[in-house]
């Protein structure tokens, strides 16, 4: 795979340096069949250093998950060798089954059929609240 040129796929750019592995894991890129390049510590004017992930296939990417891990990521959609769309991310209002509640007294710790719902409480501070018990979790991006 030529990591500079992608034919049709997705380039995740401006990932905060060191956070690429989290993105890789959250998007379950270890399970996809297509070529994936994970490039660490690329020099960046804006960030100093950044990570980049290139996926050479038009797979579906959960942008809410990405926005939660790092709202600074730019998503570039490539078709037939051309950049067709550039998406800016932000912290999503709602997270379903992305993170789990850490409150040992929360009903989600014993009731297995429940989805894990988190709602954005404070965008500036990146704070999410468990829909069930109100326990707070801070977005990884802002930690």
């Amino acid at each position, binding site marked *: 795979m030529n990591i500079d040129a992608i034919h049709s796929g997705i380039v995740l750019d401006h990932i905060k340096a060191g956070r690429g592995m989290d993105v890789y894991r959250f998007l379950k890129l270890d399970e996809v069949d297509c070529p994936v390049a994970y490039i660490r510590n690329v020099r960046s004017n804006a960030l100093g250093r950044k990570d980049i992930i290139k996926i050479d296939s038009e797979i579906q990417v959960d942008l809410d998950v990405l926005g939660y891990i790092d709202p600074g990521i730019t998503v570039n959609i490539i078709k037939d060798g051309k950049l067709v769309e550039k998406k800016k991310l932000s912290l999503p209002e709602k997270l379903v089954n992305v993170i789990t509640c850490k*409150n040992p*007294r*929360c*009903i*989600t*710790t*014993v*009731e*297995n*059929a*429940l989805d894990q719902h988190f709602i954005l409480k404070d965008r500036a501070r990146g704070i999410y609240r*468990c*829909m*069930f*018990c*109100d*326990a*707070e979790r801070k977005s990884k991006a802002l930690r």
Partner: protein
Amino acid sequence: MRHLIDITDFTVEEIEGILDLGDQMIADPAAYRESLRGRILATLFFEPSTRTRLSFESAMLSLGGSVLGFSSADSSSTAKGESLMDTIRTVSCYSDIIAMRHPKEGAPMAGSLKSYVPIINAGDGGHNHPTQTLTDLMTIRRCKGRLSNMVVGLCGDLKFGRTVHSLIGAMSRYEGVEFVLISPPELKVPSYITEELKVKGIPFREVETMEEVMPELDVLYMTRVQKERFFNEADYIRLKDTYILDPEKLRTAKADMSILHPLPRVNEISTRVDDDPRAVYFDQVRNGRFVRMALITTLLNWRENA
């Protein structure tokens, strides 16, 4: 379908409506004696709380309705390993409305996702207890004729006291309310609550003794200071008398101040205060029954007119 999981699920106007209905029910209970004939309230208590359960059952029976349920997890199907969601779905086929208490936080919210009938949270761990808050609001409004423009003192264990947290949240929505938080430093209100008060611009003060603020208070809400909350016996002994209300401490209080307590009390209010006209904690218990009658009636009406 509407449920009552957290007191702020209801708007200020909706709470007003429930309190108005509760007042009417107190004034003329006979008019409502048959109003829910044929309806069934299920009381699902996955953790025992005799007071709260009796309060709900008394409310339903006072409206001519019937009651079924269980009073602890070992007499329920949970003991056989059934999931909460399945229990709720099953019971909601047998009843018109459910009051549930559960040791896990968020359990009533989880139940409401699957229930075919309205759910009332009758307490979920240390998290919420909205019918206690409705009871407190009803008592304050009946004493003062309003829920706005007053100084509310909250005294005792403000750290773990969920009734205190909910009451602050509920009273914060009214104009001109000022809070005075009276507790030992170890048991101060959690910072997320004071942060929220700051953000909303609601005045509050944190003090360590009731004497220093007594003359200003319109309402004094007492809570229990439990021995097990302290790191050592010495701290507990040093502090416990500071947070016991007695006639001597009341000497400087306003003549029309109202003293509330969610009960049960241990020793934080001297029994010598009980006959003081300002002591309304037993009225509070009665109000709890009527406000639950109003709540059950309102949730069933909403459901039928939805």
